[in-house]
């Protein structure tokens, strides 16, 4: 569904992604794990069109999206839940969700998707009129996920959804990711919490200083000595 073929991304003189390739198969959960600063967020930003690759190609459902404007990429069906949630703090929960459906015109379907988000996240329904900035970290993460869902994405890019959340909430968020996937949305998940990510993913890639150093099925990587040592704490 998504195919990244040898992309190179620079921040000024810094070579942030080096000839990076990865594949995301339709219907799967793929995770990209690695340390802080390895290039995980850069990868997602490049897919979304916020950053540009100097070489290589990114294709999504047979469209070349390498140089497409970010809004066109969203329109094709790729949504992102950005790192640090990035909800619109002085807009209400409802307005945040409406913003997620910005490119859609199908009012009825939007309303029913909104219902669905509220059923999935009842706490957001309770806080519908509240400003997003007043929500707790976990609620903001749910809002960020709900907001991305409102675009009806076929592929959802998730950047560190567990960041800064209590362990119990992390579990809840990962359950939600699994459920969203089971309803047909493909997911590319970037995580520092390698253990949790590998436990729900089908495929996995390990990134180090801008390069993919390992890839395989999540199960394989979970049992790989190198991954255990570097990312699973033993």
């Amino acid at each position, binding site marked *: 569904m998504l195919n990244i073929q040898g992309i190179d991304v620079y921040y000024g003189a810094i070579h942030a992604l080096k000839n990076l390739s990865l594949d995301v198969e339709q219907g799967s959960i793929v995770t990209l794990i690695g340390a802080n600063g390895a290039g995980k967020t850069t990868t997602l930003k490049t897919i*979304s*069109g*916020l950053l540009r690759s100097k070489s290589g190609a990114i294709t999504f459902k047979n469209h070349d999206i390498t140089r497409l*404007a*970010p*809004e066109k990429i*969203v*329109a094709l069906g790729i*949504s*992102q839940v*950005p790192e640090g949630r*990035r*909800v*619109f*703090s*002085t*807009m209400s929960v409802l*307005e945040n969700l*409406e*913003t*997620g459906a*910005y*490119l859609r015109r199908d009012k009825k379907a939007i309303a029913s998707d909104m219902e669905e988000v509220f059923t999935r996240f009842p706490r957001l329904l309770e806080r519908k009129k509240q400003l997003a900035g007043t929500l707790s970290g976990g609620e903001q993460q749910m809002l960020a996920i709900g*907001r991305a869902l409102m*675009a009806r994405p076929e592929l959802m890019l998730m950047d560190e959804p567990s960041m800064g959340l209590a362990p119990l909430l992390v579990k809840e968020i990962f359950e939600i990711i699994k459920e969203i996937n089971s309803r047909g949305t493909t997911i590319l998940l970037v995580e520092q919490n390698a253990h949790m990510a590998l436990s729900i993913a089908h495929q996995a890639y390990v990134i180090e200083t801008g390069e993919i150093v390992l890839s395989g099925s999540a199960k394989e990587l979970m049992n790989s000595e190198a991954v255990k040592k570097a990312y699973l704490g033993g």
Partner: protein
Amino acid sequence: MVEFMQQMVNGLSLGAIYALIALGYTMVYGIILLINFAHGDIMMVGAYVGFFSITMLGSNVFVALLFAMLACAALGVLIEKIAYRPLRNSTRIAALITAIGASLFLEYVTIFFLTPEQRVFPAEAFPMHQYQIMGLYISNKDIFIIVLAVVLMVLLQYIVKRTRAGKAMRAVSLDQEAAVLMGISVDKTISFTFALGSALAAAAGVLIGIYYGTINPLMGIIPGLKAFVAAVLGGIGIIPGAMVGGFLMGILETMVSGYGSSMYRDAVAFGVLILILLIKPTGIFGRNESEKV
């Protein structure tokens, strides 16, 4: 008391004009963190478009307002595209200097084509009637200015709060990157913001023509600066702040002229700016938070 109320009425109509101009400053600042120093001159262009549509096309005040607002919306969008957009990722000082350049450009191109002479805004376009209500002299000009400004502000609030484009504006001003991820086009949203702000300035320009009776190519400078102070007073980037700040500036100015001397009017206006910057730099409605990066 009657004297005070009379000054209040005068202050409200002047304040309504300042508020309309201040809104453009604050909206543009809110979205691209730029003080658009050409904004007062866009107001001046609006006054001229209104003037010519009355004198040459013989239109009434409402049609003149409409023409002025449409022309200036287009002008604002054009200035942003040509002058500011190429500098979007440059330093803020570069954009600021460009804004001063755009301001001078508008002033002197107008002088070049239309001479520096002031023109008398046709009085017959808006025949004045004065009413005496409980000892107060209120003219239909005051009423027209205040009502029109309030209607435009309500309309603006509706656009910003309720419409899709307004939500996009708020989203971009809160977090540009996150807004892009929602599929919002930043370029289009910034253009829309300039169009809205410039249209309001144009309305203010026509209202100044009606209020003072004359217009000239440099008329945008002082009201522009005062409206800027008003926007800072209310809290730059905050829409209700610009409205309140504008009215406060207008009232303050007429009070100073009425009870003190009109010679001190402008000094007091800029004294206010110094005071805000010393006491509460974020303005009346501003929250004390570190600037977003």
